C-alpha cells in the first residue's frame, strides 16, 4: 500500500487547528479541564474532559477540520466524483452517524462515496485504513478520512458507570488509573502522491478481541493480532518500527493489556522504542481518538521528535520501558510508526505509517462465497426467540446481537465450516447496520429516566455501539480475526460484503470473513432480521470477481468499474439486510448493484 497523507485538519482539546495542536504539544500544554457544557455534578468526583472550545456540533468541527486538511493538501483540480469521504464516529449527533460524512463531503465538495465506520473508539483509525483501500483500489483519486465525536452527558454517564473515569487528568501508563474523556474531529486527505506529504500509510490491521463487551483481552491478543496484521500489510518486521502511539486510555485494564499485546507482536522491540500515549493531552476523543493521536506523532515526527506521555511519572510495573517522560516532545528520528486504537465491543485497529512511500507490491487472492444464512421476521410477525437461540451464553445480549448471531451461524453451517483451532485467529466478521439496537437504547434510556444519569445501566450502555452486535458474534463464536461495522441506511450489508471481500483479497491476515447485515425493529410494525455470507479463500462456489464503490447516484460508474456488461444485473433493495438479498440468493454469475444517499456499490459474482 502506498498512500500519501497529504493534508491534516484537527479540532481538539488542544485547539481548533493542527498548528494549535502542534504548538500545545511543543509548549507543554494539555487540553484537559472542567467540563462546562453540561452538568457534571452527578458524576462527582469526575468532572474533567478534553473539551473543544468551539461551539457547534461535531459535524461543524468535522467540516472545519476537513477544510483545514483540504487546504493543507492543496490539491489541484479534481473531479468531485473522484473524492471519497470515510468518516468514523460512535454517536455522531443525536444518533445520526452518516451525517458526519455528509458534512465533510459538503465542506470539501466531495461527490464520491461517503462511507461511515462505527466501531466506537477505533472508528477514525479504521476509517483512515478503509480510505486508503479506496484510493489504492482506484475507487477515488482523493479521500478525506477521519472521525469526530462530541462528548455529551449520556456518554460520560456510561463510562462513569463502567468505573473507568479518573477524577484527576488521566495518566496513560502512569500511576493514576482511569481515563479522561475527550472530543474533537480530525481528518486527513489521502492521495496517491503529494508534493510534501506528512507521511505514507503503509498498511493497517484489524482484529477482534472476541473476549468481553467492555474489557480488553487481558493478554492483549486483539492488539497483537492487529499489530501483526499491520506489519504484514506494510511488509515490515518488528525491528522496523521505531515509535508507537498507543491507545493508552489510562485505565488499568487497557494499558496493561495493550502493552502485553504490543510485546506479543513486537517482542523485545517494545523495550527499545518510545511508546507514547497522547490521551493526557487530548483526553479520550473516542471516535476521533485514533486520528487525533496519530496527528500528535505526525506533527512531532515532522520536527524530528516523539510526543511525550503526560503524567506518566515512574510508570506502572510492566509498563513501557520508554514512555517518553516529560512535558515536551523529545528529539527522536521516526521513520516508521504504529498507531493503535481499541474499542468497547472488542475491535482493535493498528495503522502502520512511514516517512517514505512503500515500494511493496500487493497481490490479490481470489475470494469465494462459501455459505449464506438468513433470519427474518416480517412486519407484524412476532420475534421467534426459538430461532435465535444458540448453544452459547446469550445473557446480556440484545435482539440485534441474536439476529446477527443466528444469520452468521446459519451461514457457517451452510458453508460446512467449523471455526475452531488456529482458524479462529484468521476468521472475522464485517457488519453493516443502520441503527443500534432499539431494545438496548430503550433499556439505557429507561435506566436514565428511572434512576438518573449517575445510575444509568452500564450493560445497556456497552451495547449502544453500532459494532456491539458484531463484537458479540465475534465473542460468542470466538472469531478473533479482522472485524468492523459500517453504517449506511440502505446499503449497510452490501458495503460490509464489499469491504470484507476486498480485505480478504488484498490481505492475508484472514482466511474467512463473515459479511453480515442486520436490523432490529424499532416497533412491531417493522420487519427485522439479518443476512450473512461466508467469504473464504478456499476455492469453490461463486467467486467474488470484483467490488466497486462510487458516489451516490453513480451506480453505472460502479458497475463500469467492474468491466462486465454481459452478466445479468440485479439491483439490491434498500436496507441493511435487504441489500444482501441478491447475494444470498445468487446461484450463478450476477452483478449486484445498490445505491443509497451515501454511496453506490457494485459486486460481481462469477461461477468459478
Amino acid at each position, binding site marked *: 500500500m502506498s498512500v500519501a497523507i497529504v493534508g491534516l485538519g484537527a479540532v481538539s482539546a488542544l485547539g481548533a487547528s493542527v498548528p494549535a495542536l502542534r504548538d500545545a504539544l511543543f509548549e507543554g500544554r494539555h487540553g484537559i479541564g472542567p467540563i462546562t457544557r453540561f452538568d457534571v455534578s452527578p458524576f462527582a468526583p469526575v468532572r474533567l474532559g478534553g473539551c473543544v472550545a468551539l461551539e457547534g456540533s461535531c459535524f461543524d468541527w468535522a467540516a472545519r477540520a476537513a477544510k483545514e486538511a483540504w487546504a493543507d493538501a492543496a490539491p489541484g483540480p479534481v473531479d468531485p466524483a473522484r473524492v471519497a469521504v470515510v468518516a468514523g464516529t460512535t454517536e455522531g449527533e443525536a444518533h445520526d452517524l452518516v451525517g458526519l460524512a455528509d458534512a465533510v463531503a459538503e465542506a470539501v465538495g466531495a461527490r464520491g462515496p461517503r462511507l461511515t465506520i462505527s466501531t466506537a473508539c477505533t472508528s477514525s483509525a479504521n476509517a483512515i485504513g478503509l480510505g486508503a483501500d479506496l484510493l489504492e483500489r482506484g475507487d477515488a483519486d482523493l479521500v478525506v478520512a477521519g472521525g469526530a465525536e462530541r462528548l455529551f452527558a449520556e456518554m460520560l454517564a456510561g463510562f462513569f458507570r463502567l468505573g473507568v473515569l479518573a477524577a484527576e487528568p488521566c495518566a496513560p501508563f502512569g500511576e493514576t488509573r482511569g481515563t479522561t474523556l475527550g472530543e474533537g474531529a480530525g481528518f486527513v486527505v489521502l492521495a496517491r502522491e503529494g508534493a510534501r506529504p506528512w507521511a505514507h500509510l503503509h498498511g493497517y490491521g484489524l482484529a477482534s478481541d472476541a473476549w468481553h463487551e467492555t474489557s480488553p483481552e*487481558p493478554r492483549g491478543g486483539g492488539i497483537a493480532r492487529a499489530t501483526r496484521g499491520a506489519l504484514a500489510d506494510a511488509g515490515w518486521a518488528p525491528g522496523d518500527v521505531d515509535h508507537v502511539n498507543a491507545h493508552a486510555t489510562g485505565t488499568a485494564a487497557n494499558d496493561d493489556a495493550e502493552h502485553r499485546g504490543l510485546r506479543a507482536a513486537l517482542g523485545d522491540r517494545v523495550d527499545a522504542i518510545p511508546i507514547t500515549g497522547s490521551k493526557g493531552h487530548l483526553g479520550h476523543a473516542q471516535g476521533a481518538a485514533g486520528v487525533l493521536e496519530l496527528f500528535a506523532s505526525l506533527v512531532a515526527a515532522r520536527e524530528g521528535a516523539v510526543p511525550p506521555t503526560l503524567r506518566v511519572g515512574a510508570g506502572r510495573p*510492566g509498563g513501557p520501558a520508554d514512555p517518553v517522560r516529560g512535558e515536551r516532545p523529545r528529539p527522536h528520528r521516526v521513520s516508521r510508526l504504529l498507531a493503535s486504537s481499541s474499542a468497547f465491543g472488542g475491535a482493535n485497529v493498528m495503522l502502520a505509517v512511514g516517512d517514505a512511500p512503500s515500494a511493496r507490491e500487493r497481490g490479490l487472492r481470489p475470494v469465494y462465497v462459501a455459505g449464506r444464512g438468513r433470519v427474518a421476521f416480517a412486519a407484524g410477525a412476532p420475534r421467534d426467540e426459538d430461532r435465535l437461540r444458540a*448453544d452459547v*451464553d446469550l445473557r446480556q445480549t440484545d435482539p440485534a446481537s441474536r439476529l446477527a448471531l443466528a444469520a452468521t451461524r446459519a451461514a457457517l453451517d451452510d458453508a460446512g465450516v467449523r471455526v475452531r483451532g488456529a482458524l479462529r485467529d484468521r476468521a472475522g466478521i464485517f457488519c453493516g447496520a443502520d441503527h443500534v439496537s432499539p431494545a438496548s437504547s430503550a433499556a439505557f434510556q429507561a435506566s436514565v429516566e428511572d434512576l438518573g444519569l449517575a445510575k444509568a445501566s452500564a450493560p445497556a450502555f456497552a451495547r449502544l455501539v453500532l459494532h456491539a452486535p458484531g463484537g458479540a458474534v465475534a465473542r460468542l463464536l470466538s472469531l478473533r480475526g479482522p472485524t468492523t461495522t459500517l453504517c449506511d441506511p440502505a446499503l449497510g450489508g452490501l458495503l460490509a460484503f464489499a469491504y470484507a471481500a476486498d480485505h480478504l483479497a488484498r490481505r492475508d491476515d484472514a482466511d474467512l470473513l463473515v459479511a453480515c447485515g442486520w436490523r432490529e425493529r424499532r416497533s412491531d410494525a417493522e420487519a427485522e432480521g439479518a443476512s450473512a455470507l461466508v467469504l473464504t479463500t478456499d476455492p469453490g462456489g461463486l467467486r467474488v470477481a470484483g467490488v466497486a464503490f462510487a458516489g451516490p447516484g453513480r451506480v453505472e460508474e460502479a458497475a463500469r468499474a467492474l468491466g462486465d456488461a454481459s452478466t445479468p444485473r440485479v439491483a439490491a433493495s434498500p436496507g441493511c439486510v435487504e441489500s444482501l438479498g441478491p447475494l444470498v440468493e445468487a446461484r450463478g454469475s450476477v452483478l449486484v448493484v445498490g445505491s443509497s444517499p451515501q454511496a453506490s456499490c457494485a459486486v460481481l459474482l462469477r461461477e468459478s
Partner: protein
Amino acid sequence: MSPDYQAIREAVAWRRAPELALLSLRGDDARDALLHLCPSRLLLRDAQVEESLLLDADGRPIADVLVCADDEDYLLIVEGLGGDALLAHVEASLPAGCAPEVALEGGRAVLSMHGPWAWDLVSRVLGDDMMALPYLSLFRIDHGICVRAGKTGEFGYDVVMEREALEALVPQVEAAAAALGGREVSAEAVGRCRFENGFFDPAHVPAGVTPLELQLGWRLDWRRDLERDFVGRAAIDARLAAGVTRRRVMLTADAMLSGAMLSGVLHLGGQVVGEVIRAEDSEALGPIASALLDVRVAHGGVRLDEGATVAAPPLVDNRSLHVDPRRHTFEARDEIVFPPLVRGSEA
C-alpha cells in the same frame, strides 16, 4: 495461627494435588459426552473454565469438576473420583453412539497455589502475563495450562503440566513462595479453609442428597425445554417433584458447645430439624459445622438448641477480595487496610 493456615489466608501456599484426576474428552463427540456427564450449562468458549459436578444415577454428587475448554476439547479436573473408577463411571454413563476419545491424563499432574498473593507467586514462576489471568479462565503455558479457579476463597491457581516439567518447576515455586512469606501446605489445611468458605467438598456428601439440598442448583442446567439427559437428571426431577425439604447450611457456634454439635442431630425448641454433616475447629472462627437443615428454618440467624447459629458463608472475609493485582504489590502490602478475617472480631 498455624503456619499453613497463615500461608493460605495471608500470604501464599502451594501443594501438589495428587488427589485430582485429569480426564480429557476429545473428538467430535466431546461436547455431547461432556453435556451427558456433567449437569451444568457449560456454555464455554475456548479457554473458559466452569465449576461442575459428576452425579451418580441417584443424583448424588460424586465428584467436584473443573471443566476446562481447550478449543473444542475438554479437560476435566476431577476431585472425588479417580483413576479406574472415573473411567468406569464415564464408560458406564455415555449413551450408545456417543464415542469421544476419553483418556486419563496420567502423564500430567497438578500443582495448586492459594492465597491473597498467589497471583504474584504464579507470575514469578510462569511469567508476568499470569497476573492477567481472569477468574475461571485458563492460559496456555509451556508443557500445559494454568487455570485460575481456587478452593479457599483466596486467589487460586492450578498449574496442570507434564509431570517432569512440573517437578522441574517445584524449586522455583518453593523459592518464590518463600520470598512471598509462604510455604508448601497440607491438603488438610486447604480443606479447612475451603470449609470456612462453605465451598462444596466431595469428601463430605451425605447419603441421599442431590445438588438441590447442597445449594448447588446453580451447577445444573435449568433450561428444561432442552433435549438433554445428563447422568442423574431423572433423580433430580423426581426430587423436585417430591419437594426439596432439606438445605445444606453453615453453622457457627460457641466454643463451649462444640461437643454437642458434633453429636450429629440438631434441634430447635426440642424438635429435630437437622443433622450435622461435618464439624471442624476453625482457626479463625472456632467451631463451625455444615448441616442439613429443614428448609423452613434454614435461614441465617436461626439459633439452634445446640448453641449453633445458621450463618451465611463465606464465614471469613478473604483478604484476596481486597488485593488487586493491578494496584498492589507484596512489598507494599502493609499499605493495604484489610478488614478483620472474621466480621466484627476486632470491633
